[in-house]
């Protein structure tokens, strides 16, 4: 029976090994989504996954900064599998609804007991934006923490989502991510 569970995981691992190309992000000014710049404090390894740009130090399942680079109206945050339906972004969403979009999308890809903490207004590169933190666990029962910064700019959704294992890995680069979010400047 174990093989039954392992099959898809193995395939996924192969797919990841075959596709993911990591590039070094050096600690100097970098343009994101052709919309804004950030100033990374530490070197990261970057790759892309659909609309997302993913930066990590120890591996994306341990901790990762994920940039959502301009999701259009009517599009889902995470790709649907087969006939499943996914929550979609609407350009008139309030930050409350966007936080709901994020939690429900995380739940759709297997996150459990997702909870939004401290949803608050916060400028995003000088634009009106929002911040919130996340608590959830993985399907394997590991606790994760996250923090999100974002804004809707010209009807598109931009997010910086940092998530990592609650034990050690999230805190390890939390400060670097805070500086990264503070460094956002519109081009």
């Amino acid at each position, binding site marked *: 029976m174990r093989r*039954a569970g392992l099959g898809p995981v193995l395939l996924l691992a192969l797919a990841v090994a075959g596709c993911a190309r990591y590039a070094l992000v050096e600690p100097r000014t970098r343009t994101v989504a052709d919309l804004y710049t950030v100033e990374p404090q530490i070197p990261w390894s970057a790759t892309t996954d659909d609309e997302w740009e993913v930066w990590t130090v120890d591996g994306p399942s341990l901790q990762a900064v994920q940039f959502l680079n301009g999701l259009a109206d009517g599009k889902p945050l995470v790709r649907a599998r087969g006939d499943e339906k996914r929550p979609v972004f609407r350009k008139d969403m309030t930050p409350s609804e966007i936080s709901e979009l994020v939690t429900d999308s995380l739940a759709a890809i*297997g996150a459990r007991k997702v909870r939004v903490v401290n949803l608050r207004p916060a400028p995003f590169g000088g634009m009106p934006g929002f911040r919130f933190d996340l608590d959830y666990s*993985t*399907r394997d029962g590991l606790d994760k923490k996250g923090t999100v910064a974002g804004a809707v700019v010209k009807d598109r959704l931009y997010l910086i989502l940092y998530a990592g294992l609650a034990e050690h890995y999230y805190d390890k680069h939390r400060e670097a991510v805070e500086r990264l979010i503070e460094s956002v400047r519109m081009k």
Partner: protein
Amino acid sequence: MRAARLPALLLLGLVAAACATPRHAPGALPDLRPGERPALDTDEAGLWMQMDRLEEALRTSGTLLGDASVERYLGGVLCRLAPDYCGSVRLYVVQTPHFNATMAPNGVLQVWTGLLLRAENEAQLAYVLGHELGHYLRRHSLQMWRDVRLKTNVVAFFSVLAAAAGQGYAGPLAQLVALGSVLAFSRDNEREADEVGFELMARAGYDPREAPRIWEALEREREAAGRSAPLIFFATHPPTAERIATLREQAERAYAPEQVWRVGRAEWVAATARIRPVLLRDELRLRDFARTAVLLDRLLAAEPRSGLLRFYQGEMFRLRAGEGDEGRALAAYERALAADDPPVEIHRSVGLLRLRRGERVQARAAFERYLAAVPAAEDRAMIESYLERLR
């Protein structure tokens, strides 16, 4: 209740002898005895060992609901149904919004929260649990496993299982389904399990007429959802017209009007009340609005005064956000506010919709009510910023 203490096996024997269908299909195995574990040198022990490993993974996974009082309650129903086996069956409540219950050969019984949201009373749950117990007692997994092995081999068995588990289910569900043996049991097995489930529930005093009712309700939901979104339970338990008709016949035969039957509606409502908001939120997260609409209509027909259900009906319209859904959502919220115990988040939802419609005064009033009701809300700063804009 002396009858309930007799070994279930014996009762089943008596019951089955009275039925038209033979108790065991050809090639069937003797029933599993209470507390029985297969001898170590058998293929059955090998199958159990695999399941024991999956059980270990299930136990530490993040998928369990983790509500001790609900587990105790369900365990009580299980023991009432099959007193001699309740010591050897381990019940796990898996938090996933699909309707399902599965039974692994080693006695792992999974009850998915989508079932807890959909059953309307204890008797309906008892029927489903009884059906799963039927597979367990009759060793249907072993039967299936031997049958497949005769025709192919072990590797093929597992790859078929893996393929079936992966078909149409999200990743996290695949393993859960595998643990419960996703391969459809044979039609004979299903009929036999239905028979056992039905007899167990009736013996325990549960109103037998509830058995076909849950099938009928699920069938309506499935039709609404269309082919695009199968209910997982149906993948392995096709609700054929024949099956529903058979259950109805059996129910009518077993039902004696002079007997006091247990439906357990009040017990069911009390036992599941606390987890219901979580289950409804999980259901909405699927964004399968057609099926959710049918489900909520059915639940509301039984509880027209439920502010909770009416609120989630409003949430469904708000999230669907189609033509006219804002108005539908607001109407549902209004009815919820006039009903019993609407959850406090309703004021936030009303505020968000009013805000979108530019109804400033009403938006402000709703947000103020929300903050007054939940002063320590996690989104307090955000709501205050909306209020700032509305001033």
